[in-house]
């Protein structure tokens, strides 16, 4: 069965490309243009994994993580953060708030895919 990934990114061009890339790699992809939309989509679709940008209007990546961790239905969904900030503190903050992985922009898709697979496989092992 294809795994479902919720992709949250406010730049339409990147969102579109990443969606196609993930679909070519056999994932089912749901998209959202900001954190608030992302939370709504996550509640509706219960994805296996969320990939989210950090700097977005309406609800940013950190706020998204906080909402996820407070919500019983969303708490267990792993989240990968995409960020253009390479500063260690930013990454530390994301991990502190409960992100399961991070990839800095720009990235090679192979690297993002490796992180996705690592997290999804970890979920399977535990089951």
């Amino acid at each position, binding site marked *: 069965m294809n795994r479902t990934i919720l992709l949250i990114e406010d730049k339409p061009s990147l969102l579109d490309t990443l969606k196609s890339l993930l679909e070519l790699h056999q994932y089912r992809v749901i998209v959202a243009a900001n954190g608030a939309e992302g939370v709504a989509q996550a509640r509706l679709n219960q994805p296996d994994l969320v990939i989210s940008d950090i700097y977005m209007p309406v609800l940013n990546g950190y706020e998204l993580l906080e909402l996820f961790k407070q919500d019983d239905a969303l708490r267990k969904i792993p989240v990968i953060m995409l960020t253009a900030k390479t500063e260690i503190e930013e990454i530390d903050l994301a991990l502190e708030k409960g992100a399961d992985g991070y990839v800095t922009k*720009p*990235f090679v*898709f192979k690297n993002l895919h490796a992180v996705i697979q690592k997290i999804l496989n970890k979920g399977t092992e535990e089951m």
Partner: protein
Amino acid sequence: MPYQEILSAIPTPVVICSHQKKRLLFVNTPAATLFKKLTNTKRGVSYSDIKIILHDFSPREDSGQVNSFETRQPVRGKKAFLWLEVITSTVMQDNEIFTVLLINDISARKTKEQQMVQSLEQERSLHEMKSNFISMASHEFKTPLTAISSTVDLLETKLQMDNLLDQFYRHNISKISSEIFKLNTMLDEMLTLSTIVSNNIEVSKQAVAVEQVIHDIKYQYFSERKDDRVLQVAVTGTPRKIYADKNQLSKIFTNLVGNAFKYSSENPAVKLQYQKSRLLIKITDTGIGIPEKDLPYLFNSFYRGSNVASIEGTGLGLSIVKDFVERNNGTIFVESQEHRGTTFTIIFKYPQETPA
């Protein structure tokens, strides 16, 4: 010679008054001129004019006490004002307390001071704008850069799936990718250098496990390489934490390890040697090396070795590295032989144990 004559000869405004009897005792010519300017009339100076200048300032009544203050006085009937510096002292005579006031018109000095403060403020905000601009630009540039690099990945994936990814496509696609990441490195270096130059770098030191930082950067930047090379890490001695800025340590190692990959074709190595009183970190590659004549200038901004012509770079990396190492009380030096390889050694002392 009566004291009035002596005081009249002083070119600075002088006033003597009694607060008890609310009267003026003496006003010299410069003081009279000053008050005419302030009250914008031709009448003489009255006690109430002095009271206005003193407003809520009450001179100490103990004899000989000297006080001074600055006050901004409006010029009556005009939209102008004067800045006055008032020096007061008190004299007791026949049970009456007299206040002596020396008044300086410091308007010119104040105007200059304000202009200086203003231009300093202006410069500061310009500086901030510049620094914000570089930070904003380097962040904003990454958005399209990420979209481009992902689109290249998408094209490559699709070509591969359709069995069209031949040598020609592979070669040119990897060229686009490598240029994108070069541009990204330049943006990062520009951002770092701009923060160093504007001296905005905040060093926030904490106890750091260096092997963890090495592990993090290895995972973040130097894994899954297209050429399958890996960073070898070796640790000797008992690991101890050092007191340093984690973010800066990470930039130091990312840069040096990045260079080691860039200027060699084999696996670079990081050796952490935990010695008795210090930590030695050696970053070694077996690459093209650095010509001896370049070594003294290696850490200068924009200086690049004479044998790197075909390898791109900004010449900023090592100057940033040296700055960061020194900000964290470390030392760095380089040993290199052309065609043999290069070793950068960084030394950090352990934090002083506080005696119990």
